[in-house]
């Protein structure tokens, strides 16, 4: 059972141009060719807009995987 927020998965699928079943919990910059620097920016901006949250500069630098996003969002109470 996936632990990642389904909304985040939907955003990932859209930004990375992948099917939802191709989005896995262990997705990271390292194992996902689609997760390049520009898609990273789109991903984080879309999450900010859709989940009404703001990432700090430190958050942005630290995010390297879906799990990192989940941890940061949890810390922000989401």
């Amino acid at each position, binding site marked *: 059972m996936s632990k990642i927020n389904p909304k985040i998965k939907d955003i990932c699928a859209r930004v990375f*141009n992948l099917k939802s079943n191709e989005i896995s919990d262990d997705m990271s*910059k390292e194992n996902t060719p689609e997760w*390049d620097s520009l898609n990273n*920016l789109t991903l984080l901006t879309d999450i900010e807009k859709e989940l009404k949250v703001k990432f700090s*500069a430190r958050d*942005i*630098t630290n995010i390297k995987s879906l799990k990192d996003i989940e941890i940061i969002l949890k810390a922000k109470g989401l």
Partner: protein
Amino acid sequence: MATLVSVLREHCITHPNKIFCRFIARDKEECISYKMLIENSAGYAHHYKCKGLKKGDSVIIILKHSPHLFYSFIGAMMIGAIPSILPFPSERQDINLHRDSMEKLSQRIGAKSIVTYKENLEEVNQIARDLGIDTVIPEQIKFNKDVIWEDDIEENNIAFLQHSSGTTGLKRGVALSHKSVLSQLDNYAHPIKLDSKDVIISWLPLYHDMGLIACFIVPLIKNIPLVMMDPFEWVVMPRILFENAQKNKATLCWLPNFAYNLLVRYIDTSNEKYDLSSFRAIIDCSEPCKAHSFEIFHNAFSKYGIKSETLQTCYAMAENVFAITQSELGKKVRVDYVDKQSFVDKHYAKKADNKENAINFLSVGKLIPNTEIKIVNDKRKDLAERYVGEISVKTNCLFSGYFKLPEESAKVIEDGWFYTGDLGYYVDGELYITGRKKDLIIVHGKNYYAHDIEYLANHIDGVKKGRCVAIGIYNDSIGSEEVILIAETEHQSQEASSRIIKDIKKRVSEDLNLLLKDVYLVPLKWLIKTTSGKISRKENKRKYLKEKFKIDSED
């Protein structure tokens, strides 16, 4: 007889304490004076000398964003060696492929020293050990007040190499002499009205000609203050460009076209406020300049003091050091509306009677001084105004050829004319770029050859050998091209197709650090060939757009 080194020496004598650059990284700002710049560079010059390097020897620089990019580069020039800055491997690049291509490049250009960062040293050592190349990291370099100024550097000596596109092993080094670089700087200073009150701001990487020339060599030699940011920090926080421009009252900036769209998308104009009225020009260069990008940029940021005249264009290439044309500062850049039918059928950019059913091209401006241009057909015969053909140039700052590649050089230089491989037309004293003859795809300002991408895809299990084609499709919303790879395969199962697509994307990402927008698998015999038996990029692009999006493409 001036050289880059002699001019730099003059700056160091006349205004040693003047701040040349505010170097911004990780929220810290380092102010670098000419004196600091030279004394730190001298540390490298001593190291190179100590390792036996002499005039004409090549130095490869692979560093992350730090002032050591400047120091190692200038240090090499101080002893007459030839530096070349290359990109560092990304997290996703396959390290074995990168090593292999670096090894080929180092061998071909006869590198004598490689400067790199600590984390990459072991990797570089594996190449260098076998080839007997010195390796060094910034931590090993000692600041040195005893500055070396080699006396026998002449204006026709090669000052540095700019490596053009291609996978690392196939990259061509554009050899630029001191004379060519200084001539370009003089030519270009005039149309951009370069002034001592200017402040240049940049986040561009120095392995790219626009970053290296416009945003490092121009300010360095013309004594213009520079504000420099980390490209990787900019791409995660685009707003730092506006923050630092406001803080430093920047007047000039060069950006690839996609950056205009990206800033529009990511700057939150309802919550963020900036004063950008200090900008005299934000110059679009390095990938096709688009009127739509200017329009959305102006609409979004006019409230920050950006006028439509602030947005300018330039046509530049490493082979001419940098600029060939520049739009007229202070005036709105011209947009030419062209009749679509005439453009497609006759390659004639007939002025459109109305904007309906017209294609528009943004002017890249007038020729800069000491530059001649001609538009030629396939037989290299001159074409009249408004006829679309290959752009060829003759200037007083053309490169002397691709480094140690005489055959490659002879193909593109004839009787002093350089045949650019770009297509365009010339009218009323202004140049318009319409496309490319060479199979080059420009993604976010970076050049990729279609055949490099196809070569990688051809080696993926399941792809019919020799039956794939890479095409570039312009995406208006991101302001840049995206790459689609179409490949024939015999496999029909969903599982096999998914695996092939994944493998192709992975291989291209690892080797070229390029993200393919789409891998389109098609059955055997889908791809269209030309009459000469080659796979037609143009026809297959047309077929792809029609089949996938029901769009009729005009180019």
